[in-house]
């Protein structure tokens, strides 16, 4: 398998008004094509900086990011974002269908093809009949589904999800986690899922990347050897799940204290 996403020697230093803040020191990791990797770290560990560098929204001080083998210098065409703040990421003046279709208009696609992609994406997140509604008429969980549909319709090589479920209630969150697992298995997309929730990271990921406190390095990479078929009830009470989450938890505590792994 080839690597979909390569981050090598990434460093980001913010300079401003005589203050130098080294947010990210040295990050190197890869995400293989078709892999679902979760990224966790103590709060304020530079996750957002990392994501913005990967998404081409920020220029790293040194190091580089490759998406599908191409170096990122601006927002890469093969990457889609799902943000935490769904309410501010969907455009309230457009109906759901138009929101999903908007990024496709930048691609060279026929109208029929665009329609097909929009319908298919909405269908696969369970919102087939919501195309005519405005985002603000939907619940928070449904709005985040729309954002996911928008990312799916874009047919990205890599899907970046930035704490996408941090702002929805626990039950909706469980549904959305299963949705992400299902879409990942059905469509074989590469997903990098950033979260601060350790359980979520272990439940969702095939691999968990644990980041250190800022200035950030990769504290540890952990393979999640849970079965492919995961289930909110059984997986979460499996002994192996508990071991893994305990391990991740310890690593994050160690990262907070600034100890190496």
């Amino acid at each position, binding site marked *: 398998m080839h690597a979909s996403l390569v981050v090598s020697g990434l460093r980001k230093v913010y300079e401003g008004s005589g203050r130098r803040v080294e947010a990210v020191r040295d990050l190197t990791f890869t995400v293989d094509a078709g892999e679902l990797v979760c990224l966790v770290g103590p709060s304020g560990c530079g996750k957002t900086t990392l994501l913005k560098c990967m998404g081409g*929204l920020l220029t790293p001080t040194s190091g580089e990011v490759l998406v599908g083998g191409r170096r990122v210098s601006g927002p890469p065409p093969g990457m889609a974002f799902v943000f935490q703040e769904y309410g501010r*990421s969907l455009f309230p003046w*457009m109906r759901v269908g138009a929101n999903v279709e908007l990024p496709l208009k930048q691609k060279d696609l026929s109208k029929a093809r665009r329609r097909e992609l929009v319908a298919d994406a909405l269908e696969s997140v369970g919102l087939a009949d919501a195309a005519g509604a405005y985002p603000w*008429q939907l619940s928070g969980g449904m709005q985040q589904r729309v954002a996911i549909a928008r990312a799916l319709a874009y047919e990205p090589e890599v899907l970046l999800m930035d704490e996408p479920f941090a702002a929805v209630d626990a039950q909706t969150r469980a549904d959305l986690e299963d949705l992400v697992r299902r879409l990942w298995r059905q469509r074989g997309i590469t997903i990098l899922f950033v979260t601060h929730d350790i359980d979520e990271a272990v439940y969702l990921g095939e691999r968990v990347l644990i980041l250190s406190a800022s200035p950030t390095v990769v504290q540890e990479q952990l393979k999640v050897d849970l079965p492919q078929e995961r289930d909110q009830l059984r997986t979460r009470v499996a002994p192996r799940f508990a071991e893994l989450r305990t391990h991740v938890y310890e690593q994050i505590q160690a990262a907070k204290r600034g100890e190496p792994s």
Partner: protein
Amino acid sequence: MTDIPPEPTRPSAWGSLPLRVLFVFALPALLIAFWWLTSDGSTNVYWPPLRTILRTFPDVWTRARLRADLVPSLLRLLAGYASAAVVGVALGTVIGSYRKVRAVCEPVLEFLRAVPPPVLVPVIMLFAGIGDTMKIVVIASGCVWPILLNTVEGVRAVDSVMSETARSYGITGPARMRAVVLPSASPQIFAGLRQALSIGIILMVISEMFAASNGLGFTIVQFQRGFAIPDMWTGILVLGLLGFLLSVVFQLVERRVLGWYHGLRDSSRRSS
């Protein structure tokens, strides 16, 4: 799971339709009655009874006069207002989009905005003569400020997450303007347009009072100079009605264009 709530209807705090009609018309009716009673039997030449004014009205505002005076006024207002809207939104978008341009322009804009537009009439007359061009320029030069400054604010305030979403999906340049920046700024732009409308009506009248051969402002001044006082009062009534009608039309357009915005506000008000 896919139950979509129906299009929200704006909750009415006023109850049934007849009651609402009553509320809308109660105060105007009261004021008219007050005017009627206090002016009735007035012998003051400058303060004719409302009865006389209303009797004069149909004689003065014949179809021919409406065509000769109201239509030119309206066309000037429309031309001035429309050019102010185009210039204001276009310039405002540029100024609002670039921080450096804004830093250079803002003090100048604040100064120009502070100059009361009527004082520009004599100046503009020097350059643009006394024809329709002068009046249109006067109207446009007064209307442009609220539109421009509100557009700048609106464009500047585009949400950072929306902006990043657009960027990450490669929505840039004209597509970004059309699909993201202008819709996002539209509530603020409309606030500017509404202010500009009332300024436009004022300037329409003032510019016609200076040097004109037709128009509402001209006609009202003519009546006043000819001591046709009830006729003058009817002109003022026409102006009032015109302003009212234009604001109703404006509100209808705004409701349509900003439907999403009112819905969004109602829904966040309900949930908070």
